[in-house]
């Protein structure tokens, strides 16, 4: 089966000067939850932006490689058309319209062609029943968790096939994150929506993901099943904070040598 | 360049003193000397209409440089520039009419009045930013024009205040060639003052404020003081330009300082290229000359005479079109074109700059 999303050897250059990511390849199959892990500046957000069509705003552009979604090339498409194809992004910051009420936030998005809008809006409320209580509340007054719910819900209203979630856990209490993560799984299970989850918090991401990619300095250094990644020594040490005793920085070099280069 | 030592191909500065130098290479010196010579010869070959245009350009350049300091460097938007020019012109006019004050009193007086007004109207900038600041400066324009208009009517100068040509001893500045050099030296002074300000601590403080006020504050820059300083210096320079305008034209009248004039100055710095003194000068040249160039071009059309009445309206419309095309196709302004041309010759036969380095 062809993957739903295929990113091939993607290279993005900012301001015609700074190469942000180099030769990133990844795939997401229908119904999968794929995690994209990495520290600050690893190129996770750039990858997401490249997929969702927002590179142009920062004077960045794809210099090499290709992005395919359901056999459509996504190069040079404006963001709203990419949304119409079925890829919807839940951004890291500014994820709701603060001066609109919850209901208005849910009625603003444009659904993909052929989607039953009414059903989508109802579904948003079934996944996030709490939002129904907050219907008339101005979105700017919601708590962080509620905001994230609203952001996910309004992304669902667009009727996506692929949901891109940027930093689900950022600034949220562990309990809330846990809850939201379970909702993502539910969404995937019930609607068959593919989810690409970008996270710094590898514990959360790997707990719900099927597969994962680890990015560093604009390259993919590790990939594989979530279970395999979880048990990988480097991941244990650098992302999950395990592996017992502290090592000195001298040993970090070992890790550097052991990583694989793609592309 | 026939230098025996290998010439550096990059842009290297090995001390702060070098960074502060105005002219660095021999090419720059040569260009400057050639340019000054050309400016010196120009009045002796030009017709008086061309001289008049040159004088207008110098006056506009002083105002544009002042506005560039404020908007392009310190990041404070102003739409009250015409009001400041009016304030300077009226200071000179009123001092002359009421007290018969001399040239060398009225010009500094205009500078002081400009500085005071700048101080007062810089105060909102401590609270306001962007568009709202622009509008508060717009109010300045209306107030100055109202006061000027009342003065004119109450004193019975209904067609404007007439000012005698300035006199230095027995010598009267009336000839346009002399005006050319007077205005040229004022414009050059404005440019030098600005260059010196910008390469000093003040200039760097302004740049910091423009980039990010909060961070500038955190870096220990006195943001309010530097903002006010920008307003004071810019307003003072502008008011001097206004006083010079009054003397050069021989009259002062409120109608000369319409809102459109403010907009023309904003157009100069945007069309010239934000954040560059060269841009301010190029913008002043462009915006001042464009209507005349269009007028000339249109007059060349066959049979232009027979629809002369419409010609004027056509000029007006064409001015709008050229401005629009410029804004759409050259957002970097004239300086952008200038740098591209410069780079083209510098890098020839290569096409693009290498990554990093190079002169911006």
């Amino acid at each position, binding site marked *: 089966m062809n993957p739903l999303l295929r990113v091939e050897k993607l290279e993005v250059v900012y301001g015609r000067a700074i190469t942000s990511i180099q030769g990133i390849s990844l795939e997401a199959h229908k119904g999968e939850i794929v995690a994209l892990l990495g520290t600050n500046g690893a190129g996770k957000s750039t990858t997401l932006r490249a997929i969702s069509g927002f590179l142009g*705003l920062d004077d960045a552009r794809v210099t090499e490689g290709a992005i395919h979604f359901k056999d459509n090339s996504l190069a040079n498409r404006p963001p709203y058309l990419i949304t119409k194809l079925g890829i919807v992004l839940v951004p890291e910051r500014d994820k709701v*319209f*603060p001066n609109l009420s919850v209901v208005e936030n849910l009625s603003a998005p444009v659904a993909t062609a052929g989607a039953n809008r009414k059903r989508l809006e109802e579904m948003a409320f079934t996944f996030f029943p709490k939002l129904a209580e907050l219907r008339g509340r101005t979105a700017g007054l919601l708590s962080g968790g509620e905001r994230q719910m609203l952001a996910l819900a309004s992304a669902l209203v667009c009727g996506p096939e692929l949901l891109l979630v940027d930093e689900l856990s950022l600034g949220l209490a562990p309990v809330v994150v846990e809850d939201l993560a379970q909702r993502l799984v539910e969404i995937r299970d019930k609607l068959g929506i593919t989810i690409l989850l970008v996270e710094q918090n590898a514990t959360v991401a790997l707990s719900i993901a099927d597969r994962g990619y680890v990015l560093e300095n604009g390259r993919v250094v590790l990939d594989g099943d979530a279970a395999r990644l979880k048990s990988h020594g480097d991941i244990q040490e650098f992302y999950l904070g395990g592996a017992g005793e502290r090592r000195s920085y001298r040993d970090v070099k070992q890790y550097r040598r052991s990583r694989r280069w793609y592309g | 360049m026939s230098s025996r030592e290998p010439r550096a191909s990059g842009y290297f500065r090995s001390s702060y003193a070098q960074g502060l130098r105005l002219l660095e290479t021999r090419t720059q010196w040569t260009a400057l000397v050639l340019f000054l010579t050309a400016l010196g010869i120009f009045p002796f070959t030009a017709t008086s209409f061309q001289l008049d245009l040159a004088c207008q350009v110098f006056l506009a350049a002083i105002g544009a440089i002042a506005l560039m300091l404020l908007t392009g460097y310190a990041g404070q938007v102003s739409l009250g520039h015409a009001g400041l020019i009016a304030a300077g012109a009226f200071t000179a006019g009123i001092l002359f009419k009421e007290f018969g004050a001399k040239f060398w009193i009225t010009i500094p007086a205009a500078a002081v009045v400009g500085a005071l007004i700048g101080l007062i109207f810089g105060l909102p900038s401590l609270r306001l930013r962007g*568009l*709202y600041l622009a509008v508060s400066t717009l*109010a300045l324009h209306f107030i100055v024009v109202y006061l000027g208009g009342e003065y004119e009517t109450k004193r019975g100068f209904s067609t404007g205040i007439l000012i005698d040509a300035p006199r230095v001893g027995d010598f009267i500045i009336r000839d346009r060639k002399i005006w050319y050099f007077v205005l040229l030296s004022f414009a050059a002074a404005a440019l030098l003052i600005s260059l010196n300000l910008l390469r000093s601590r003040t200039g760097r403080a302004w740049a910091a404020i423009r980039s990010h006020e909060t961070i500038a504050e955190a870096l220990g820059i006195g943001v309010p003081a530097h903002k006010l300083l920008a307003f004071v210096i810019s307003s003072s320079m502008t008011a001097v330009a206004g006083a010079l305008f009054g003397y050069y034209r021989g009259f002062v009248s409120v109608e000369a300082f319409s809102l459109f004039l403010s*907009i023309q100055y904003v157009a100069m710095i*945007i069309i010239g290229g934000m954040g560059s003194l060269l841009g301010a000068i190029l913008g002043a040249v462009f915006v001042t000359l464009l209507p005349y160039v269009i007028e000339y071009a249109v007059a060349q059309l066959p049979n232009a005479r027979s629809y002369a009445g*419409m010609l004027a309206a056509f000029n007006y419309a064409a001015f709008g079109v050229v401005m629009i095309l410029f804004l759409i196709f050259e957002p970097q302004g004239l300086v952008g074109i200038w740098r591209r041309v410069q780079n083209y010759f510098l890098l020839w036969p290569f096409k693009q700059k290498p990554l990093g380095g190079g002169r911006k």
Partner: protein
Amino acid sequence: MQLAINIAVLTAIYALIACGYVLIYRVSRVLNLAHGELMMLSAYLLITTASLFSKTPFIALGAAIFLSLCVGVLVYLFLMRRMTGEMVLAAVLTTVALGVLLRGLVVLIWSAQQQNPAQALGWVNHSLPVFGGRISAAGAALIATTALVYVGLFLFLRFSRYGIRMRAAGQNPLLAAQRGISLHVIYALAWGLSTLTGALAGILISLDSGLDSTMVLIGLKAFPAALVGGLDSLVGALLGSLIIAAAEVLMIYYVDALLSDVVPFLVLILMLVFRPWGLFGTREELDRV
């Protein structure tokens, strides 16, 4: 009583014009300084349609208003679309340049002389008695239209899907695009609506008191009204217009008519000192522009 009516008419004029500024600013953060010129253009379009449909004034009126809407959309598509992403000041300057172009065009096409659309339509501007005062038919129409436009805009922005999208795009264009909203459609719509309301204002003012190029200046006078209210709020624009109009008329009545030009800006400065974001504007706007 006449005092109240005079204030009401002037408020209606300013409010109808001000909502044009607000619509565009709210959605795209651009200040349209060509609004006065667009308004004037619409009134001149009426002169032309009136001569085309001289028998049926209402068709002429409708055609002029429809053409104005098209002009607004075209202005966005061919001009302002290219300025998205540029410096706001450059975009504002572009509208100024557009204004210059339009002024020239109007003289080229319709000549500089005074026109009278009411006469061209064969209408007489009757004067109607109300509550012990009098109001012209066009003045009454102005008040009614302004009320309708504000109610209509309120309903549109609050309840229609495109209205909500317009508000969304104004708050966070990036997110709006991510939610599948085509910003170009929204911006074009805003320009169209803004020009439409401007056209209504321009046409009604010219029906009331004739048409020449001073119309542009009236457009500019409504600008402080929009600012006093807060540039991104319709309620604010309405209230701002009331404040400015009342200040102006009272100044004419009791102090000095000559000050009526300066008063709006004095009010504005007071406002900027105490509430820089306007009566109803959003506070965060300050940091955005």
